[in-house]
């Protein structure tokens, strides 16, 4: 059993869902990150957030995968102030919804004053709604941006265990681990991390507070990278228990602080009977048709 705690399923096909289910992925977390589309209106963003908690969750359920999401304003949109203000108005409508496990993905891109303003405002929202925070660390000036991010989180009274720092690499891992934050790695074949590098990181740093994700999206990326990296770890003499920590348990522990994700959701199919899409009575005794 694996969890992919960062993947943009809205950009993926049903073939991906099928392959992920076959590879043992039982749950996914989709952080809000506006699709690669024109970003001009808060209304289209609201529709995107509504589809994260609605249609995408339903789509995943058709393949036996539980879908959760994180809700937030990305740093790239923060630089358009009028749009950012309008989006900030919309966020409270979504943050209390079932299955919303974090505020995210938020953080820095260019590290502008506007990015910082809306990052801080969303840390306050996380406290108000009692949710963990999923932080996207910048591609540029990464170590400096990551340290600044942690400083600001602490300034706002968030504890390190409430914050997941994502997209780490060999240069950031030590600082993030040392300060007590959840330390996530994105397995992105061509840019961020490769599976072999990840094996070395686990061998060097162990498994405490470390987990991996695919961040697969609409670009060249691999929705099976969590499962593939798990296999490579097993072949590289990392124990099954350690692989479970890095590919399942740690992500679950980090995001279950929200109270919105639990093993029961996928282990006990009868846990929430009203979510059964096959209906609740003999009267509705037909299975939903899943188009091939």
């Amino acid at each position, binding site marked *: 059993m694996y969890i992919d705690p960062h993947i943009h399923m809205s950009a993926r096909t049903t073939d991906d869902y099928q392959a992920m289910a076959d590879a043992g992925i039982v749950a996914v977390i989709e952080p809000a990150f506006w699709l690669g589309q024109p970003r001009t209106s808060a209304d289209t963003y609201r529709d995107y957030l509504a589809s994260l*908690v*609605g249609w995408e969750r339903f789509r995943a359920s058709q393949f036996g995968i539980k879908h959760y999401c994180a809700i937030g304003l990305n740093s790239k949109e923060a630089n358009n102030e009028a749009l950012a203000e309008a989006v900030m108005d919309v966020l409270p409508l979504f943050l*209390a919804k*079932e*299955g919303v496990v974090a505020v995210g993905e938020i953080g820095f891109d260019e590290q502008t004053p506007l990015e910082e303003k809306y990052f801080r405002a969303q840390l306050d929202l996380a406290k108000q709604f009692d949710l963990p925070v999923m932080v996207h660390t910048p591609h540029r000036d990464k170590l400096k941006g990551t340290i600044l991010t942690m400083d600001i989180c602490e300034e706002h009274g968030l504890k390190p265990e409430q914050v997941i720092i994502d997209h780490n690499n060999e240069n950031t891992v030590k600082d993030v681990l040392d300060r007590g934050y959840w330390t996530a790695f994105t397995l992105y074949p061509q840019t961020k991390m490769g599976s072999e590098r990840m094996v070395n990181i686990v061998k060097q740093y162990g498994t405490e507070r470390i987990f991996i994700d695919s961040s697969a999206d609409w670009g060249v990326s691999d929705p099976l990278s969590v499962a593939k990296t798990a296999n490579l770890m097993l072949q590289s003499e990392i124990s099954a228990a350690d692989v479970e920590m890095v590919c399942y348990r740690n992500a679950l522990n980090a995001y279950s602080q929200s109270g919105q994700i639990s093993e029961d959701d996928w282990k006990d199919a009868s846990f929430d009977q*009203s979510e059964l*899409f096959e209906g609740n009575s003999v009267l*509705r005794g*037909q299975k939903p048709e899943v188009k091939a």
Partner: protein
Amino acid sequence: MTEIEYARVLDEINACLHHHQPQGAQKLAAYFDQHPTFDARAMYFAFGMCSRWFAKDLVGATADSALLYTASIDNFEVIPRWRWRDLARCMILLRYTLPISALYSGEDSCDTPETRISALQKLFNSADVQEAALLMQSLAFLPCVQDCVMQAREAVRSNVIQLFSAVAHDSPIAQRFFDDNSWNQLVLKAAFLAQPIHAIVGVRERNNAELVDMLKDYIRERQAASRELPWDIWAPIAWLADDDDALNYLQQQCSNLPEKSQAAIVLALHESTMPQAKLWCDQLQQSMAIPLYAQWSDIAALSDSIS
């Protein structure tokens, strides 16, 4: 149709929540106290927080004694299938929309009836699947059912089965307020989604000749592709069969169908109010030895594989 006593429903649900979910009910009561003018923004927040304040467990039959009047108007028995947080959300919607009711005598707070309706629309547009379905199922208990036809139309265009079913099987809105085009779309969509047709609210009362033509066309298309058909797609056709052509059509089709579909044709003919239908029904039964089931649920319970 007698006007529903909305304030009474509100009081009953409130008492029921205090009895079965005291912690959540107290949090909600405190929130109401903090927001005496319960405007749209306050409503959105309370609606959202129900998932934190109330349990995920199903209401079940436990609430029956506290909800006597409410249960009596719960024609589709949705409340036992709700979770406690859904019941609380229904109460919040009722509290927010109560000033729209003709019987309402209290003071209106800040929001106009138009504001209240558009707030419900905004809530629907930002809802997750469970919330959107709950909104549709709640319409039977709210004084604004006719104002939400657009949202119900959206819901039955959805491929999300739970949302479709909330309107088609659990709400009076389609039967009462959909025009014929909308109605026919709803029934066809049930066939596309392989959801029960016989259990659609008002399926017999709203049946019409144009729909029968559309269903026959759909049947031709599926048969040309050698695809399966819903067993109960035959019901609306047989209910309206009133001449020799219609009989011949059903006779020809029937011999090639699985037993479940045959049983549907026989029961629909038996239930038909057309003078000749019962005779045809007897003929069909005799020539093909199809049993006459007492109810649609009896046929629905049959295995699909019986042929």
